């Protein structure tokens, strides 16, 4: 059994320091945006959260590929946790974005922007991942079907991204392009530190969740060895992989 708690302390400290530095840069260093003013500071939390959540979905898909290739159920667990965390980050990105939209555009949501709507579609699609898992009782089938779903969903994310980029009419500003960024130096630096902080937070929470799940699984195995199979209550139906 691998141990996921290894290095978690150092990673947590690094995450905390990076996010603290990012917040200092956001509120005390980076100049106000000429067009949007103070409200643009939401950019440094909303965009990294959205990027990391989308990368998390792709990461979940990659781990699902590993699961189907190797048949090792631990990859299914990793994929499940990766998607679970990405969903949490996605919801936070959506809420932060909504607040920004209300302040900037006067609406909590606009339906005529491909970026917003496509992100919502991705999020809603992955929101069905957990109910899908829960609906399948047999753990083997559950893991296999969930992996197929995660791969298709993970592949859909970059495709979706390209489609949105190809769109001609949008409300969302284009700050980061394939040829580089339109941000001035201090803003780019702050954005990159924020992105690093949120990425580290994602990795830390992923490891944290994996360590917790791994501990629970090991404790159950220990209990089974100690008391025998008959004395362990059967696992309740769950969306989480049981191993």
């Amino acid at each position, binding site marked *: 059994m691998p141990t996921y708690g290894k290095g978690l302390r150092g990673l947590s400290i690094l995450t905390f320091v990076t996010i603290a530095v990012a917040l200092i840069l956001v509120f005390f260093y980076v100049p106000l945006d000429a067009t949007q*003013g103070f409200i643009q500071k939401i950019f440094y*939390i909303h965009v990294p959260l959205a990027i990391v959540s989308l990368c998390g979905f792709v990461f979940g898909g990659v781990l699902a590929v590993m699961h189907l290739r190797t048949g090792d159920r631990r990859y299914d667990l990793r994929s499940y946790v990766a998607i679970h965390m990405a969903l*949490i980050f996605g*919801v936070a990105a959506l809420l932060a974005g909504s*607040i920004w939209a209300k302040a900037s555009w006067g609406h909590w949501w606009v339906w005529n922007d491909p970026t917003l709507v496509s992100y919502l579609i991705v999020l809603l699609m992955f929101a069905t991942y957990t109910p899908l898992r829960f609906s399948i009782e047999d753990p083997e089938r559950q893991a296999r079907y969930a992996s197929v779903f995660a791969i298709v969903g993970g592949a859909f994310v970059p495709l979706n991204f390209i489609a949105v980029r190809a769109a001609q009419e949008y409300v969302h500003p284009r700050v980061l392009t394939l040829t580089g960024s339109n941000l001035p130096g201090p803003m780019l630096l702050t954005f990159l530190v924020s992105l690093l902080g949120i990425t580290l937070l994602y990795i830390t*929470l992923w490891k944290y969740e994996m360590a917790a799940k791994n*501990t629970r699984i090991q404790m159950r195995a220990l209990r089974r060895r100690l008391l025998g199979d008959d004395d362990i209550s059967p696992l309740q139906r769950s969306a989480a992989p049981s191993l």
Partner: protein
Amino acid sequence: MTLLGIAPALPLHAAGKYVAGAYIVFVLVILIYVAIMAVRLGRMERQLVELNRDLERRDQAATEQDRDPGSTSAEPESEPDAATGSDAHREPAPVSGSGRLGDSSL
């Protein structure tokens, strides 16, 4: 014309609550997650205590069996001794989940 084009920059006092709101949402999401993890950790800790108690009970039963090899004390669910018809050495029934304490395969 885009929506951005017609939306003027908000003054600081008006924009502040939105910026605060966005960052508070982020902190809240993290806090809720940490709270859920804390509940799970508490549950795991209780299970660990229970596991330790079961282990101690098993060790105690094994020690008593070593001291008195003829005893059936390690099998709480076993029938009374057929030779004597007595169940004087029988251990009290375990509180929970210890029906197989004497299982040699452990």
